[in-house]
C-alpha cells in the first residue's frame, strides 16, 4: 500500500518537519528517543493536529493537502490509532467499547472478523466488564481490538506497551504479531524500545528532533554506521534464519541464513524444523580474529569481510562486517583495531559469543 506523508508543525519551541514516503506493508517501525516527535507525527497522521501543514495520501486517498485546502477531520480518516494510554470509554463495557468504532466504520465489508479479533486478543471473558476493573495489559488489548475492528486502512500504535512490565508486553507483542499475520493489515508501530522494534518491524523509520532522518529495511537501518542505532550500547544485527536440524545430545539447533548459506547454532528453544526465526547478535558479543581459531569454546564462527569502520569514542570502534549478504556489527577497542590492522576489505573471522532468539 502506497503511503506518503509530509508535515510541518510548530508547537512551542518544537518543530516537526517530517516526511515519510514508502510502500507500507507488514509492520513499519517508527523509532526515536523521547521527545523526538513520534507522537506528534502520529497525531498529524490521524488528523488530531489541526495546525499541521502538509500532505498525506494513503493508498489512493488524499487525507490532507493544504495546497488544495483538503483536511479530512479525524473521524473521516480510516486509521486505527492505539494510544499510549488505552483511552477506553469508562461508561461503556468492553463489548460496547469494541463496538464503538465498528458501528461507525464506513467500511462495511467486515474484512476483519469480530470473532477472529476477540479470539486472537483473548477478549471473550472480558466483554461484560468495565474498563476500571481491567489490568493495564487487558485495557491495552481492548484498545488494540477497538482500533482494529473499525476495518482501518492502517493501524497506528503509539508505544502501546510503554506502561507494561516485560512479561505483559511480550504477550501483547505476540498478539500484535498474530493479528498482523492473520489480518494482513499494515501497522505503523512507534517505539523507543529497540527490542520491541526488532521483534515486530520489517521496515524502519528513524526520527530525530522532529525529522525522519532515514528509512529502510530494519536490518540495514540498525547496522548503518552513519545512523545512531549502530552506536547505541545495545547496537546489534537481526538475522532471519531457518531451523534445519536439532542435535538432541547437546540440545542445540542448527539454523541457516543468508547467501551464500551460513550455519549458526543456538540452544534448543523448542523450535520447529523449517520454521523461520529472528535472531539478534549484539555488537558487544562479537570479537574478531585474523586466523581461524582451532581450539575455542565459541561455536559460531563466520568468515567475514570488513565493510566499514567508525570511531565511537577514544577507546572504541564499531566495525561493520559482511557475512555473505548479511551485515554484522562488532565493537572492538582501538588497541585491537591497530594490532590486527583492521581496514576496509580485510577478510577475517567473526566469533559470536551469544545469539539471542527474538521470538
Amino acid at each position, binding site marked *: 500500500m502506497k503511503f506518503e506523508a509530509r508535515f510541518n508543525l510548530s508547537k512551542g519551541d518544537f518543530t516537526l518537519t517530517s516526511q515519510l514516503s514508502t510502500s507500507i506493508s507488514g509492520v513499519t517501525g517508527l523509532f526515536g528517543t523521547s521527545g523526538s516527535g513520534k507522537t506528534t507525527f502520529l497525531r498529524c497522521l490521524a488528523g488530531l493536529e489541526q495546525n499541521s501543514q502538509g500532505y498525506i495520501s494513503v493508498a489512493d486517498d488524499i487525507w490532507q493537502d493544504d495546497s488544495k485546502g483538503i483536511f479530512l477531520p*479525524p*473521524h473521516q480518516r480510516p486509521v486505527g*490509532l492505539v494510544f499510549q*494510554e488505552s*483511552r477506553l*470509554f*469508562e*461508561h461503556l463495557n468492553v463489548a460496547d467499547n469494541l463496538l464503538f468504532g465498528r458501528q461507525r466504520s*464506513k467500511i462495511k465489508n467486515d474484512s476483519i472478523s469480530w470473532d477472529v479479533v476477540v479470539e486472537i486478543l483473548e477478549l471473550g471473558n472480558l466483554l461484560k466488564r*468495565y474498563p476500571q476493573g481491567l489490568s493495564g495489559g487487558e485495557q491495552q488489548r481492548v484498545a488494540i481490538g477497538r482500533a482494529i475492528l473499525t476495518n482501518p486502512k492502517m493501524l497506528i500504535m503509539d508505544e502501546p506497551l510503554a506502561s507494561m512490565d516485560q512479561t505483559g508486553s511480550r504477550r501483547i507483542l505476540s498478539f500484535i504479531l498474530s493479528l498482523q499475520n492473520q489480518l494482513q493489515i499494515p501497522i505503523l508501530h512507534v517505539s523507543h524500545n529497540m527490542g520491541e522494534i526488532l521483534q515486530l518491524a520489517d521496515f524502519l523509520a528513524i526520527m530525530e528532533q522532529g525529522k525522519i532522518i532515514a528509512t529502510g529495511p530494519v536490518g540495514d537501518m540498525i547496522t548503518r554506521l552513519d545512523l545512531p542505532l549502530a552506536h547505541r550500547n545495545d547496537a546489534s544485527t537481526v538475522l532471519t534464519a531457518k531451523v534445519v536440524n536439532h542435535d538432541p545430545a547437546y540440545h542445540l539447533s542448527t539454523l541457516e541464513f543468508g547467501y551464500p548459506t551460513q550455519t549458526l547454532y543456538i540452544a534448543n528453544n523448542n523450535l520447529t524444523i523449517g520454521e523461520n526465526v529472528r535472531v539478534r547478535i549484539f555488537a558487544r558479543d562479537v570479537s574478531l580474529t585474523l586466523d581461524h581459531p582451532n581450539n575455542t569454546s565459541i561455536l559460531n564462527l563466520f568468515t567475514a569481510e570488513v565493510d566499514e569502520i567508525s570511531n565511537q569514542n577514544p577507546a572504541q570502534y564499531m566495525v561493520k562486517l559482511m557475512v555473505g549478504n548479511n551485515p554484522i556489527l562488532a565493537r572492538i577497542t582501538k588497541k585491537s583495531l591497530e594490532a590486527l590492522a583492521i581496514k576496509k576489505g580485510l577478510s577475517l573471522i567473526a566469533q559470536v559469543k551469544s545469539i539471542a532468539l527474538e521470538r
Partner: protein
Amino acid sequence: MTLIEAIENLDWQALQLSLLLAFVTTSILLLIGTPMAWWLAHSKSRLKSTAEAVISLPLVLPPTVLGFYLLIFLGPYGWLGGAWVTITGHALSFRFSGLVIASVIYSLPFVVQPLQRAFETIGTKPLEAAATLGATPWDTFKNVAFPLARGGYLTATILGFAHTLGEFGVVLMVGGNIPGQTQVISIAIYDHVESLEYTQAHTLSAILLLLSFASLIFVNAFNRRTPIGIP
C-alpha cells in the same frame, strides 16, 4: 395548628410560581450553559479568564446590585426591555418573563461551573479517541462527553434549581411582589413575616428547607455511587 390546616393555608400560588420559575430557568441554563462550559473547559483563548469572571459575578455581587442593573436593563427604557416593549407591547420588569431572564443570569455560575469542571475532568483524551473511531463532534458529545459528565449535569441541575428557588433580592428588585405573577415563595415568606403571620412563614420555610436538603442528599448519594458513571 394541624397539618390539614397548614396545607389549607398554604400559599399554593407562590409555591407553584417558584417551582415553575426554577424549572424554566434550569432548563434554559442547561441549554445555554453547556456550550459555555464546553468553551471554558477547552478554550485556550485569552478571553477565557474574563468570561469566567463575568459568569461568576453573581456569586459575589450583592443581589440588590444585580437586581438594580437588571431592573434598568429590562425596564421599558432599558436596552432589552425597550426592544421587548416595541415587539410585545409590554415591558419585562415586574413580569414572569423578566423573572426568568433575571434568574438565568443570577443562577448562571451554579450551572456553568459544575459542567465546566466535569468537562475539564474528562479532558480531550476520550474525545480524541472517539474521533479516531469515526465519531463526528456531535456524536462524540452525545455518546462520550455527555454520559461521562452525567455527575456534573446532575449537580448543575440541582444547584441551579435550588438556587433559583431560593432567590430573593434579585426577584424583589426585578419582579416586585405581584401575587400570581411575580410573588415567589421567598417573597411570600418575607410578606408573611412582615404581617406577623408566622405559621404560614413556618410552613413555607420548612418546605424550602426540606427541598434543599433532600436535593443535596440526592446529589451526594449519586456522586458517591457513581464516581465516574458506571451504570
